[in-house]
């Protein structure tokens, strides 16, 4: 009751369907090439036009190669999917940021940086990491392709209102501990299904102190706790970030918008369906050891003996360790690493590149580590160069690739080979996620950088000395 989630949700209710879901108005729909073609087909089959085309933004990101983007995509199936999005956007009159356009990048990086995702909005996309935009103080969540078609057809969606959860984290994060570590810690505490059915509001002094980039990382990972989405009440950090961005309101409109955005907070009397509180002092740099993001430990800890409660389903834990080629009780520090991936909608923003560069500066990449550094957008790429980070990275033996989702889900050529161990700043360590047979350890950009330098799993704080 009287939570920020209630305020935004309730404002967007068009009608309550009798004995059914809510018809919710959607301010912004983002479309990428993977989850939209069948929705456009459906629209054509029904003879429908997009109801509010100016509220829909399209860009390819999942299939885009991270090199030679100026040349045609080599994989004909990827090429067809990317081309299909461009054709569909043109046919339905939608804005499309094509590959190599300076506006292109990962949808969840581009939306916030262009000021397309604003406080108080409802935002959806056929992509579970749409929760990222919650960092702007928006109700943002991932949907399926049928639901994408609903929004195209009506700018509305039918949804059951989720329950509300507040996760409060208080205190100052230790040196070398990032928003990514906070999220990995939360997942391990509440499991990958602990927030299913809920929408999370993140609060507390730790969250308030996060930069916009850090908040985007935290909200991005809400879905990995099972939540529909997660968001943070907008504040001065949000307004500062948004001011002057391409689609942010300007002049008088800006003042009016900020005045409204300042009202977007949970009431002092707000009642959440569930409240959880954590202490920042308990959070260390984190890594995962298993095949879901909740299977994580502090970087200096050992893999637990078993996390399963139901003996009949013990095989889940064992299956994960077998796949990862790890043993219960094993410590992972010093384990040899084959690949390092910096990027994705989780950690592909400028601050992530700054963090990575801060570790590798003046050092050299380990010879036997393959490192893929993939900016989240061309805007991030531009800023990397403006800040001279490209030189720092090049001197340490790293090259910067072209923007896209890349090895997060390996729909392009950036596949981790079977059996190889990857330290990745992405969001999922599922079996085969980074390529068939690939073994993934999720970590922060600092921990990824430390692994890239030493060639083994390393506590990044060791490299501060």
């Amino acid at each position, binding site marked *: 009751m009287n939570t920020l989630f209630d305020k935004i949700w309730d404002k967007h209710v068009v009608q309550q369907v009798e004995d059914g879901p809510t018809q919710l108005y959607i301010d912004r729909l983002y479309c990428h090439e993977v989850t939209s073609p069948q929705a456009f087909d459906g629209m054509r089959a029904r003879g429908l036009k997009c*109801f509010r085309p100016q509220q829909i933004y399209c860009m390819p990101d999942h299939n885009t190669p991270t090199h030679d983007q100026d040349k045609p995509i080599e994989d004909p199936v990827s090429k067809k999917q990317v081309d299909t999005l461009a054709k569909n956007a043109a046919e339905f009159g939608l804005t499309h940021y094509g590959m190599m356009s300076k506006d292109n990048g990962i949808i969840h990086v581009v939306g916030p940086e262009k000021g397309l995702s604003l406080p108080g909005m409802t935002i959806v996309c056929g992509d*579970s990491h749409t929760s990222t935009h919650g960092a702007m103080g928006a109700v943002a969540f991932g949907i399926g392709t049928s639901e994408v078609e*609903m929004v195209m057809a009506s700018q509305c969606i039918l949804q059951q209102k989720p329950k509300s959860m507040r996760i409060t984290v208080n205190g100052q994060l230790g040196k070398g501990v990032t928003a990514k570590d906070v999220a990995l810690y939360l997942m391990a505490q509440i499991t990958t299904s602990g927030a299913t059915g809920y929408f999370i509001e993140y609060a507390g002094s730790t969250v308030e102190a996060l930069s916009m980039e850090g908040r985007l990382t935290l909200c991005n990972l809400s879905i990995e706790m099972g939540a529909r989405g997660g968001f943070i009440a907008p504040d001065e950090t949000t307004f500062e970030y948004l001011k002057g961005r391409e689609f942010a309101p300007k002049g008088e409109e800006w003042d009016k918008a900020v005045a409204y955005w300042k009202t977007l907070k949970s009431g002092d009397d707000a009642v959440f369906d569930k409240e959880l509180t954590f202490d920042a002092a308990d959070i260390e740099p984190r890594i995962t050891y298993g095949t879901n993001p909740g299977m994580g430990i502090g970087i200096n800890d050992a893999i637990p003996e078993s996390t399963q409660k*139901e003996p009949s389903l013990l095989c889940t834990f064992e299956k994960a360790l077998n796949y990862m080629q790890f043993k219960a009780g094993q410590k992972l520090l010093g384990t040899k690493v084959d690949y390092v991936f910096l990027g994705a909608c989780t950690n592909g923003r400028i601050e992530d590149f700054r963090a990575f560069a801060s570790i590798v500066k003046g050092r050299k990449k380990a010879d036997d580590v393959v490192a893929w550094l993939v900016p989240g957008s061309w805007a991030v790429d531009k800023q990397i160069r403006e800040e001279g980070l490209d030189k720092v990275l090049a001197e340490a033996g790293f090259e910067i690739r072209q923007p896209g989702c890349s090895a997060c889900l390996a729909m392009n050529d950036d596949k981790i080979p079977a059996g190889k161990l990857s330290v990745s700043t992405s969001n999922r360590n*599922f*079996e085969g996620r980074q390529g068939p047979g690939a073994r993934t350890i999720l970590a922060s950009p600092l921990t990824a950088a430390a692994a890239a330098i030493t060639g083994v799993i390393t506590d990044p704080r060791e490299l501060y000395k």
Partner: protein
Amino acid sequence: MKQKFDIITSTCVPLPLENVDTDQIIPARFLKATTREEKFFGDNLFRDWRYNADGTLNKDFVLNNPEFSGCILVAGKNFGSGSSREHAAWAIAGYGFRVVISSFFADIHKNNELNNFVLPVVVSEAFLAELFDSIAKNPKMEVEVDLPNQTVTNKATGSSEHFDINGYKKHCLMQGLDDIDFLVQNKQKTELWEQANK
């Protein structure tokens, strides 16, 4: 795809694993299709568990075990977690499953199943454990899923449970209607909302 629902009685395929994510249900490399061909997605359901790396059948995986068949998939809790890909629901439907029984579903996947006329049935942990046990003892045992009465029955033991589904969605499944039809019919209400809020 829009098959009307009533009462389904079938043998089951057991998948006693927790946290089965949509990357396992349909790996990302099969998401490049630009059409909704059910057979293509059905053929690649659980692809990397069904086949070995060399392309041969993994005989240990339940879908390759001729003892188990039927249009009801029974899975451990938190089924369908991870990626929002509706392709996972297309793969499940394309393979021929009409019902998935679990003690817990991930939110987005649950909606995706409903939007593809696959019925997610949430049962208690105890009911699920007993069901896995019954299937293990007799793969030919049947389960009855009665949508009109919202009950699911383990016919081996006689155990029965009520399951939840909202009245609107139940009506849609039983009549073969979808949400887009409804939303398009309600455009006027949407316009009224816009006038009041923009």
